């Protein structure tokens, strides 16, 4: 049914905006795209107002291209930089209140399960370190404890970027930021271990240096959430403004952090592992 609502009613093709027609004809709806073909198909998000060189914007671009079923996906965000791009995408987006993403997603997913028991509807939260681990911490953790069936992606820029560069719980110790004029006094919170302890069935941590790997991780997180329980991706998406990373050095920085503390890490329950072994043997079945 998801495809039904994106499809253009016959006779209206020439009245619809060109971008929309392209989206339906040359976009991702109803088919699978290869992330390495990025640039050769109409993407779900193209224009956004994020800063030049923003690695979060890059991650979000790859995220949308990796969605297994964009026509039946709802993205939820909160205040922060990410929502500036998320609200521009051709995927339904809910922007609620401060830090409420995982509670809204819980209610939404449950409603969709009641209304469409036999049809997968994917719910994905993409929020920042502040939204998920500071202000929304309780709701993030409890959605995991309750084993809600949706994916949480933390785009961690280690700072409150959108409000002007304040310290967050995910900022590294010692870093001098606004509201931390003497440097941050405590360690970066270990979100990955929290997610595992709280009951996520699939947990990954990455620095977005490899689009193929990002895509595979996103796809796995969404599919595992659909079938088994909460999933979590912790992605390093640097803030080149607040951390003064020159635009041309953003990728270099991501590689450096990958070596330091953002080495690719993936963990899943045995059940999920078995599921992917089966699924990835026959890639044709993914869309069903």
């Amino acid at each position, binding site marked *: 049914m998801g495809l039904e609502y994106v499809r253009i009613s016959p006779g209206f093709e020439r009245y619809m905006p060109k971008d929309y027609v392209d989206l339906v004809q040359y976009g991702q709806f109803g088919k699978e795209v290869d992330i390495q073909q990025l640039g050769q198909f109409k993407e779900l998000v193209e224009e956004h107002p994020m800063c030049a060189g923003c690695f979060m914007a890059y991650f979000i671009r790859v995220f949308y291209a990796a969605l297994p079923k964009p026509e039946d996906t709802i993205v939820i965000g909160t205040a922060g930089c990410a929502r500036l791009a998320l609200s521009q995408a051709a995927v*339904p987006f809910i922007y609620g209140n401060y830090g409420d993403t995982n509670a809204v997603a819980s*209610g939404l997913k449950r409603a969709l399960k009641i209304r469409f028991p036999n049809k997968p509807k994917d719910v994905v939260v993409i929020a920042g370190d502040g939204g998920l681990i500071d202000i929304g911490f309780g709701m993030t953790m*409890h959605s995991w404890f309750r084993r809600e069936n949706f994916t949480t992606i933390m785009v961690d820029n280690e700072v409150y970027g959108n409000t002007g560069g304040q310290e967050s719980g995910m900022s590294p110790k010692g870093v001098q930021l606004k509201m931390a004029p003497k440097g941050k006094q405590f360690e970066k919170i270990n979100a990955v271990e929290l997610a595992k302890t709280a009951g996520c069935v699939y947990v990954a941590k990455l620095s977005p240096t490899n689009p193929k790997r990002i895509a595979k991780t996103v796809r796995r997180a969404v599919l595992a959430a659909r079938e088994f329980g909460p999933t979590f991706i912790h992605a390093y998406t640097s803030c080149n403004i607040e951390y003064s990373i020159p635009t041309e050095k953003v990728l270099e920085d991501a590689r450096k952090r990958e070596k330091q503390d953002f080495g690719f890490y993936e963990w899943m329950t045995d059940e999920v592992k078995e599921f992917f072994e089966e699924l990835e043997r026959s890639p044709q079945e993914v869309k069903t």
Partner: protein
Amino acid sequence: MPEQRVVDADELILRTERQRKFITGAQAMAEAVKRANVDVAIAYPITPQSEVMHLVGDIWAQGYIRDYYRAEEEYGAMSAIAGAVRGGARAFSATSGPGLLRGLEAIASWPGHRIPVVLGVLTRVVNAPLSIQPDNVEISYLLNCGMVVLHAENQQDVFDFTLAGFVISEKVDVYIPVAVCTEGFFVTHAKGYVNITPEELKLPPRDPYKAPVPPTDCEIPPARIQRDAPVQKSNFMSYLIHAVWQQEIWSSNKRAMRYINHYLGGPIEVVNPGAEVFIVASGCAAAQGREAVRYANMEGLNVGLVKVKSIRPFPEKQVREVLSNAKAIIVPEHNIVGWLAKEVKACIPNSDAVIGGPRVYGGMTLPVELIMERVYDAFGIKKSKKVVV
């Protein structure tokens, strides 16, 4: 659980034969939820509300509701309610005092997000020193959210307002949340006679496509309340978009009045319309006001009552009309700030006729004698005169 049959809302609320039960306010609210074809109920404990969501949980366990859980806290509960309703479900939650304030950021955004839902507000003290006792100051925080706010006098009102609340909130020309408020303990934990509709009849399910703002379910093009980045920034476009959207919320709120007339017999109830002195009250205070009218009439004093059922939309016209010749207007309340007195004063030309009070708070009861003192004052009768009965 009996097999429930769907009947038309008007049929269920206005025409089915009712049975008389002796039940608490909490039970009355749960009985209404049972008949409302609710999809999702989300609970979080707080005294004195907890009783309501315990009972709603039991109803879920019996199969009347499709999903139910105990949330992490009220902000989480009210946010999840928003998610469930945007997903097309019919939802219910209830809270009290500090819980309401904790959930208020989410609740205050419901009207703007066009969330048709019913929220039970079983009032209690907020603020320090902590107390779990009845006091309805929290209703004043709801008055500027844009939602419909109904104030129930007794167990019967709780049942009627809750059941009708679902119907009113989902009307296409309303489509905003409805708060059903009543005093904690005085109503929630006390029994009264309630005429209730048959257990085997329920409201039709929610049709989320009959809506001014569609659900977010990937079955229909979504509404993006927050769409373009420029709209989220400070510029004239954003001011305008916010302004027209909020104007529409408040117009929706006003449009609820026609359904309050239809399902609840109007926003006010008037006892002795030709009275010289009026008591204007809502919730529990209206019950005490009713008693005061009886006392006064026994003494030959021409006193009437205006019970205000709907605080938002506030029935300005109706209140103004009834009070146009009032010599004095007494507004007894269960809170310290006197929010109802302010509402009344703001909508009548003769606002100096309003006697703000008596007010009790922090859990105190509202003795009829306190109201009678103001009645005597209004008639220039010496205070030493004793109340009959």
